[in-house]
């Protein structure tokens, strides 16, 4: 199976017509395969504790792990053979379109948001996050963003924390409320 797409036949006459390897879908294939392997390996490590049961806690995970492993490998094969044209087309389009600095900066802003949520408090962090994220996404109107951020953050905080009773972090330094 893999001999024909392993690249050993190398630079055959049809080599230039072959589309380049799609890296992003490859990564997803690797992820699914790895999850399958971990689940399968983990399934065998679950001890058979209860003898009175027809099947123990490990039986179903074996099926899930094996299934994920098989599907993951099929995925990898499809990527390596360039047989899933729809996925290839999408990968090409996405690669051309995705603006990574924006995605990265937004992800970083989210990580900071999570890190500061408890120390700084929900509404404070949320308001700051909204301004930062809006800036990352191309806004050039910080005053408007700050106003929107404050109103939204305080409204959510009061609605959930004070009215609905879902407690949200108030922050270590209590400002006004």
């Amino acid at each position, binding site marked *: 199976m893999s001999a024909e797409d392993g690249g050993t036949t190398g630079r055959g006459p049809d080599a230039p017509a072959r589309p380049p390897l799609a890296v992003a879908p490859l990564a*997803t294939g690797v992820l699914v395969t790895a999850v399958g392997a971990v689940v399968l390996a983990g399934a065998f490590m679950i001890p058979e*504790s209860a003898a009175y*049961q*027809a099947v123990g806690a490990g039986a179903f995970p074996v099926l899930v792990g094996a299934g994920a492993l098989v599907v993951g490998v099929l995925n990898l094969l499809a990527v390596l053979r360039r047989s899933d044209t729809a996925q290839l087309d999408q990968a090409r389009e996405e690669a051309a379109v995705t603006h990574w600095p924006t995605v990265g900066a937004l992800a970083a802003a989210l990580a900071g948001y999570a890190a500061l949520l408890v120390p700084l408090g*929900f509404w404070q962090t949320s308001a700051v996050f909204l301004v930062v994220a*809006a800036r990352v996404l191309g*806004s050039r109107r910080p005053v408007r963003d700050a106003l929107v951020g404050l109103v939204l953050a305080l409204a959510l905080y009061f609605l959930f924390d004070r009215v609905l*009773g*879902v*407690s949200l972090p108030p922050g270590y330094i209590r400002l006004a409320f």
Partner: protein
Amino acid sequence: MDVLSNLAEGFSTALLLRNVLLALLGVTIGTLVGVLPGLGPATTVALLLPLTFVFDPVGALVMFAGIYYGGMYGGSTTAILLNVPGESASVPTTLDGYPMAKKGRGGAALATAAIGSFVAGTISTVAITFLGPAMAEVGKMIQPAEYFAIMVLAFVTVTSLVGNSVVRGLASLFLGLAIGLVGIDSLTGQARYTFELPRLYGGIDLIIVAVGLFAIGEALYSAGRLRHRPEEIVPVRGRVWMNREEWSRSWRPWLRGTAIGLPIGSLPAGGAEIPTFLSYAVERRLSKRKEEFGKGAIEGVAGPEAANNAAFSGVLVPLLTLGIPTSATAAVLLMAFQVYNVQPGPTLFDDQPVLVWTLIASLYIGNVMLLVLNLPLVRLWVRLLSVPRELLVPAILVVAALGAYAATQSVFGMALGLVFGALGFWLRRTGYPIGPLVLGAILGPLLETHFRQALAFSEGDWTVFATRPISAAILVAAALMLVLPAVLRRRAGITVPVAE
């Protein structure tokens, strides 16, 4: 008569001022969030799940039924005016809805969508009223082996019919099943895949999975494309109403759409994608003006919108009576039930009659409310379309963060939400549908329960699934569903775009 007296009971609870207000709140928030570009019904319901932490089950589910419907109505507005379908089931609406809007008939397109949805929703709710209890009776007779087989069939249909690759759909499904394994095993009390983290003993909170995959993932995805695709909002000129000709061209597609959407949606194998695409194809075939399709034929909006709403309602039948959601949105709705330890299934009608009948009664009420909200007030919603993306995306993320935090009352929840957000972004970007993952995560534990019960009854004999005729037949059907779409697709060259 029994059904009618139950329904009357339901109405008596649903019409309590409090529940009417909650239903109104639900449809309003649902429409409001659903109309925001890029937020489909599943994302809408997921984002609003934190609201379940604060209400009683009946009130919350009345509200969530409203959100469920409202999110879909809102989604058609973006499909028509922005050419942005909120979910794959709305794709057919864009094919003729957007051209209609460009030709200045946006008002008529919105009107036929709203009225068609109302007609379909009401007919379907009547059907649920009678079909639901009957299905529940059938459901009680289903043995674990058959239950397992039905769930496999549901998985397979949802997976192989969404998106354009069975393998990618299955990959998503198995990731979901793996997520569902994490936590203490309910039968033996053994910890599985918890990696010694006490926080994982209770399993991965599905609200976090849904919020992360749908809301955060979608936000990251649209952030990456923000600089690339400027959308053009088509303003609605004239009244949101139809002229005589448009009425006469609409009513048959509404009924046909309902006739297609309701039965397919009600099967424990349906979903809403097939009916809408099928309805579009049927309208096109039956129309005398085929050349208008794709350029703004009102039938192409009326039929699929009715089919979508009928299927959306129909999906509630397997959800309530078997506990099997057959769409991503229904899976997220199931999470709202589970927050209250209400497990939908065959015994739900007996155990929770007040809840079920109030819910069904509130569907009638919600449909009327949505008609009112969407005809005269649609201009109000349209203005939401012009909320700048650079503010909208951060606002969604703040609400998502709140949901992820509140689900576990910890930053761990939010961090997990970010991980799932990254996963959702990546899957979306590489062409893997999210729906099967959510379905696998929420139904995996139930699938395992039936699997183990069936094996316990057979005393460990694994052939039980193949030797019981009904179970075997259903599994064969599932196997066919796995192979057939790929064969048909290869022949016809049809692809179903993935929006969620």
